[in-house]
């Protein structure tokens, strides 16, 4: 009997360790990445002062506030400077958050600022120095999918611009892919990430006023028009290629 009891205890301990190992999340402190170009590289479409403040103040503030919450939880051991970790957290938010014992307002603070951190990590890569006639390379998968989904590149641009003009308050408009390579234009409010809707961001435009006010003031339409010259279609294609694939039929492609 004693042996049985001892073995049971050991097995139970092993089970506990496995369970903790499976549900355990590795937490890291967030550090903002450097821009892939200099602060004036997107001129005249996006001015140097905006890029500087947007990166060193706004993006930094999102990282700082996430870290404030994580510090209180005493969970972090290492640092991360890219969106791989934030993506994981955002995609698995519903499963992760109950284990954290965070009060409501801290949960909100964490979610808002995690979204802000993640969105901006991607945004810098979704932009590139200005190119005339900027569009996805013909013959690429992205180019073909845009044509088949929206009718033409110009039709896509019109729809994207309409969506971006329609965002009321702070938010983003995105070109996203779902796991069955179905493209969509969606808008998210504040710093909500498309990832929480299982949509993978290929390109996005930040429509918070801080993203354009110094140069464009209320003229959001002009800012959106200038975006086309600096959109990084190469990055968007890369993101499409690395979108997680689902082999199940998507019954709701327009969600």
């Amino acid at each position: 009997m004693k042996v049985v009891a001892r073995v049971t205890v050991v097995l139970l301990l092993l089970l506990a360790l496995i369970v903790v190992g499976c549900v355990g999340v590795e937490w890291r402190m967030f550090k903002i990445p450097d821009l892939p170009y200099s602060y004036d590289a997107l001129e005249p479409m996006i001015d140097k002062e905006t890029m500087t403040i947007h990166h060193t103040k706004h993006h930094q503030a999102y990282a700082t506030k996430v870290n404030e919450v994580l510090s209180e939880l005493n969970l972090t051991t290492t640092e991360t400077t890219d969106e791989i970790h934030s993506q994981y957290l955002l995609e698995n938010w519903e499963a992760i958050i109950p284990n954290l014992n965070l009060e409501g307002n801290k949960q909100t603070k964490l979610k808002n600022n995690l979204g802000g951190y993640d969105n901006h990590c991607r945004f810098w890569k979704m932009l590139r120095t200005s190119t005339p006639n900027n569009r996805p390379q013909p013959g690429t998968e992205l180019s073909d999918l845009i044509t088949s989904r929206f009718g033409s590149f110009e039709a896509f641009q019109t729809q994207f611009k309409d969506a971006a003009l329609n965002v009321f308050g702070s938010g983003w408009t995105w070109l996203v892919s779902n796991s069955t390579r179905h493209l969509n234009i969606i808008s998210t409010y504040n710093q909500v990430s498309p990832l929480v809707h299982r949509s993978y961001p290929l390109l996005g435009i930040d429509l918070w006023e801080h993203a354009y006010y110094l140069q464009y003031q209320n003229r959001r339409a002009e800012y959106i028009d200038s975006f086309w010259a600096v959109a990084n279609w190469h990055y968007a294609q890369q993101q499409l290629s690395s979108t997680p694939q689902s082999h199940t039929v998507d019954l709701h492609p327009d969600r």
Partner: protein
Amino acid sequence: MRRATRCVLAVTSRRRNLTFSRGLTTASSNANLRLFKIPELPYAYNALEPAVDQETMKLHHTKHHQAYATKANEVLKELNVQGESNSEKDSEYLLVNWDSVISQHKLSKPNLKKLKNNAGGFDNHCRFWKMLRPPRQQNAPQQGGELSNLINEKFGSFQEFQKKFSDSSVGVFGSGWTWLVQNADGKVDVVTTPNQDSPLEDGARPLLGLDLWEHAYYLKYQNKRPEYIESFWTIANWDYAQQQLNK
């Protein structure tokens, strides 16, 4: 359900001298609606310097406030609304009686949203200009006055109220407003609303408000929102706030 309840309460409220749902009748729902025209500012564009810069005041009034009026009117015209008004009486009527007004019209979902957002924006800004005044030192509600007493009753002291208001303002994520309001029970409180939502929708009377959309401060303050909030205390119009009590 909550909105409908609010609407009924607004009509039957026994709050002192309440004329909250001014003009709610069973006659045509357009009887109390006119097209929106933005009012003039009660002061020059540079009058709030150095707290709020001239360029911001100009853009804020002639572009942003104007755009809310223009877009709300695009929808109102489809409802055959006639006449023009440059006060917030009409927008207040619409916001307070939203459910009953729109139930009498068949507006598409996008147009409903467009009207609500922009009527809110129009209304909020009509009040905002009056809630500000040229800067003065030691700017506070009159000591011993009704508003001062209500503030002390609710927050303990004027300084504690300021801290609550400032903290709420710092905490608004995205676009929105912080307000000092008077509730139906006569007491005051600090509330925030997202985007262009109005405290009127919750049965609260706005006494003072601070626009926290980035367009309200970005040219001068950029990301430094706390500095903008600090400057607000020098230009808050306590006379207006006092006048709005018990309305």
